[in-house]
């Protein structure tokens, strides 16, 4: 494994000052299931010099409902979220997404914060010893463009990168209209991922730490659902996943939120489909039209056209499950 320095932070302030000290050359480690693999495979072009452990900061693994909001600490473990009764009943899509993430062992180690801050799973990006110096690593090419792109973006590239975002919980949080609190700001989960700087995936600055996830409490007439398509039921990353949340007024849709992931560089919100559903009853033909609209702008690559049909099915399944 690559050599690195390792610090246990006692407080968030200490973690931030360590990040500042290393000036972009340090990473936070929480569950470690992603970053330890990156170090083992020597994936980074410019390897971080240090890891800063935040598991030593007490009180960051809470799940608590306050007034009209659910607050989740970044160190809450995925396995605990998957079995949390409150989440299962009121924030169903998130509990289901946590349950479908990776394997039981990874969920016992992996945190919600780490799951939404994870690095790309593109096989060119991940190939050991930085064999493909892609755009994400300061190179000029995206090797998926003409190479093996069966798991890559179906909505085009951003800054020429075609890698998809692999998180299962991110689309659930976006569909549930969550906010993310960091050491610097509070922003919508839907704006948490950025495409300006190819060297990073989220908006987090090099000295910024995610400190809380806030989800508005859904109304009584709201339901949510998460579905994932992968080769195996367990362990695998999604080929496509989808979370939907529907708020009803009588039998009509008052508001629909849909978020796909593993289809684009960031989680993908099909706005046209969401808008179309407003005021309509959730019937087979309306969800069919919504799914068509959602994938209308798809531009599949040479080997991933099949993902369009999967995405449509998942949109229909999750919407109908909200009925």
């Amino acid at each position, binding site marked *: *494994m*690559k*050599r*690195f*320095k*390792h*610090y*246990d*932070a*006692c407080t968030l302030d*200490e973690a931030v000052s360590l990040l500042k000290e290393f000036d972009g050359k340090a990473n936070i*480690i929480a569950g*470690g*299931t992603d970053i*330890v*693999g990156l*170090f*083992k495979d020597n994936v980074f072009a410019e390897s971080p010099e*240090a*890891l800063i*452990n935040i*598991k*030593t900061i007490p009180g960051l693994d809470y799940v608590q409902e306050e007034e009209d909001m659910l607050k989740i600490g970044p160190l809450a473990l995925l*396995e605990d979220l998957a079995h949390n009764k409150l989440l299962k009943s009121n924030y169903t899509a998130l509990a289901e997404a946590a349950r479908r993430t*990776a*394997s*039981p*062992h*990874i969920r*016992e*180690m992996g945190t919600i914060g780490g799951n939404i801050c994870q690095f790309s799973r593109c096989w060119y990006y991940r190939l050991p010893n930085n064999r493909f110096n892609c755009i994400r690593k300061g190179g000029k090419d995206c090797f998926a463009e003409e190479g093996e792109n069966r798991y890559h973006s179906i909505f085009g590239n951003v800054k020429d990168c075609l890698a998809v975002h692999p998180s299962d919980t991110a689309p659930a949080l976006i569909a549930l209209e969550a906010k993310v609190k960091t050491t610097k700001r509070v922003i919508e989960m839907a704006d948490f991922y950025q495409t300006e700087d190819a060297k990073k995936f989220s908006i987090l600055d090099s000295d910024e730490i995610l400190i809380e996830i806030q989800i508005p409490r859904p109304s009584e007439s709201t339901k949510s659902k998460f579905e994932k398509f992968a080769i195996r*039921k*367990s*362990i695998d990353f999604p080929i496509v996943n989808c979370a939907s949340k529907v708020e009803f007024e009588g039998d009509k849709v008052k508001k629909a939120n849909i978020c796909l992931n593993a289809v684009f560089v960031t989680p993908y919100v099909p706005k046209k489909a969401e808008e179309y559903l407003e005021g309509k009853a959730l019937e087979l033909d309306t969800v069919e039209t919504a799914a068509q609209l959602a994938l209308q702008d798809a531009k599949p690559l040479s080997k991933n056209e099949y993902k369009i049909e999967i995405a449509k099915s998942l949109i229909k399944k999750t919407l109908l499950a909200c009925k």
Partner: protein
Amino acid sequence: MTEKCQQDGGEKKISMKINNQEYNIVVEPHWTLREVIHDKLGLTGTKEMCDHGACGSCTVIMEGRPILSCMTLAIECGGKVIETVENLDIEKHPLVETYANNHAMQCGYCTPGFVMTAKALLDRNPNPDEEAIKDALEGNICRCGTYPAHVVAILEASTKLEGGK
């Protein structure tokens, strides 16, 4: 945490309680828990297979949770209570006998990981049904394909645990 938080970023002395025995060891930042348990402390029951958190063979129980020792940095395990497959023999856990009786292994390399996952399940839920067992074993891979035998062995161990009460 018994250790003081701030340090120089390099090697560190940690103490862990493994199978009810206290171990003190100086670890480098890049050492995984599996390396320390298997290579440094000589508890060779814990196996390395994929070394990437994808197969479950290196499973140990830490603070009651089945975790992957290959993806855990040892330097972060100071003060932790850990249980490895060797402890099943010390405890005379019924899983040892039911695994043998039901031939829940072929080459045996993945078995310590499976057994520790099963032990963590039984610690939490001494009377799991078939579904709960299958769910718990979702992260363990056996290339010999012994999967059905594990369910039988774990169900049988659970009846022995119940009977022992």
